[in-house]
């Protein structure tokens, strides 16, 4: 299910949070409403951790992670690093890396299997991404923009990219990522997809300006509509047919 929320009158929820299948990071400050919106949806399944990175609240844009690991920029303080190591599950490897392009969330987009990165990222960083996050790394641009982490958001089930992405690019990316992709917007026409929303395999949080149309596109491409009989049957189809035979 997709939920609409705000951080202090700001609809850019992907800036102030980082959501994966194993944990969720939320910025400090802001009202408790923001934090409780995440807790309400996620607390049963995954830990929701309040943190800052380098003393700032824009944690969603500075770090990148998936269920296997979390990469932090060099601006992260030792206390923040320790806090994250303590709060996250043990199987999540938390690593601080020295990369000139320190806004990792803007430069790298990933799910649990594939990552797209900024074309100018260091070779060493690319290796860290492959090791810590356990993904295959592709250097790409999206609609001509090199900040791939900002202009697309994808999970293991689907993805949303910059609205000006051409059909050829969409097909190419979809093949690389092995998930269905759609070009669209969030927060009433904002092209910066990843800043406007946070998504994982079963839930999404969008800015409160997101229109009903945008929300329905998001729910459909990320396959968030649970409880639909067709969805359940599709998943179970293989085992059903086996049993009929």
């Amino acid at each position, binding site marked *: 299910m997709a939920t609409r929320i705000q951080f202090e009158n700001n609809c850019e929820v992907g800036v102030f949070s980082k959501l994966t299948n194993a944990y969720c990071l939320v910025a400090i400050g802001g009202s408790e409403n923001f934090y409780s919106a995440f807790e309400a949806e996620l607390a049963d399944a995954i830990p929701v951790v309040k943190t800052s990175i380098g003393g700032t609240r824009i944690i969603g844009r500075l770090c990148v992670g998936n269920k296997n690991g979390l990469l932090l920029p060099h601006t992260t303080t030792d206390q923040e690093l320790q806090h994250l190591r303590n709060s996250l599950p043990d199987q999540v490897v938390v690593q601080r890396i020295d990369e000139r392009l320190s806004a990792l969330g803007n430069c790298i987009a990933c799910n649990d299997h594939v990552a797209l990165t900024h074309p100018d990222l260091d070779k060493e960083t690319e290796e860290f991404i492959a090791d810590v996050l356990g993904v295959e790394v592709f250097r790409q641009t999206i609609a001509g923009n*090199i900040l791939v982490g900002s202009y697309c958001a994808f999970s293991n089930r689907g993805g949303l990219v910059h609205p000006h992405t051409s059909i050829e690019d969409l097909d190419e990316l979809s093949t690389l990522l092995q998930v269905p992709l759609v070009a669209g917007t969030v927060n009433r026409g904002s092209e910066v997809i990843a800043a406007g929303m946070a998504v994982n395999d079963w839930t999404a949080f969008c800015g409160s300006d997101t229109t009903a149309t945008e929300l329905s596109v998001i729910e459909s491409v990320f396959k968030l509509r649970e409880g639909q009989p067709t969805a359940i049957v599709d998943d179970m189809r293989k085992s059903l047919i086996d049993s009929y035979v």
Partner: protein
Amino acid sequence: MPPGGRKPKLPPTFAALSPFARSIIFTAASASAKRPPRPHAAAAETPRQGQDDMPRQPPKRARRAEPSSDDEEEEERGSSESEDEEEEEDSFGTSESDGDGDGESSEELETVQADFAFFDPKPTDFHGVRLLLKTYLDSKPWDLTGFVDIILAQTTVGTVVKLADDDDDHDHHQGQGNGAADKKNSNDDDDLFGLISVLSLGRYAEHRCIKDIKEYLLSVCADKDAKKQLRSLLEGKASSVGLLVCRRFVNFPYELLPKLYDALFDEVSWATEDEPTKELQDSFRFKHYLLVVRMLERKTPAKHKSKSIKDDDDDEPVIYPKLEDEIFHELSSWSFTFPIRSEQSAQQEMKNYKEMGLVMAIKAEAIPKFRKKLEALVSE
């Protein structure tokens, strides 16, 4: 964000900034590289004082800015078609044409030529206007989106200031543009430098955002007398009260201000005749204007007593980020201040000052006086 073509490398500090913030950073190098001298074109100067003018930017990062392809918007364009272009041709001269030296220009004022133009508000300005109004009230959530919507819907009274566009269709079609996503227009849309409008509290009384504003102002007002006056304006006399909203970035050229306010008050008087229904015409016959602005108040200088007297004299008791607020405050019938809870800016010179909100009411009769004083102040 121009989608075509790959952008040149941006320094790491830029990666986390919004496209808009990046697009308003320019250096002498980029300015000279792309701009041919155009002596006949109208231009307004934007003295760029790398120091503490940019919102949300520490000073030294702005200096080391590398040219970004967004800079093409900052070039001189053809003369704008809209009504109130400021015409100033004196240029601060050749400091801009020093191409590559990033060392030598570090202490000089860098100026860039830019054409500003006034436009009627239109729906595509949503994100730019929202950005300007983000700090209108404090950080408590309120219906900001609805507020932006009513400002944009009121095309007869209200002006937005953007960089002049040399796309003829854009202006001739009354701002409706080309319908389809025109990339040039979409580049321009988020680059709003300023906004001015006045909203009738009576006409919009039922809107969620106006109710939120009224509730907020009544809750932060500590002064009993002011509260009584405020309540009467917000409730009894609401149909003759206009909420005057003027928001702009700190580096907005002050020379444009008299024209901006003139545009607004002229549109208000035209609306009292031109609006289609009598009800709408009457909604613009304002007797009072209400303003919600910010100001900086000096914190009690307990430590300064030991310092020389010269320090105390130099420190103003109150600083108005927008210069016309001082004139409004002088001419106001009543006003009150309230503390702002959200994060204060961490600038060095401002550390002795606390940011406060200021609410004031002006009688409509005082407006001609205001216009004269503003004109006088700007031409000093």
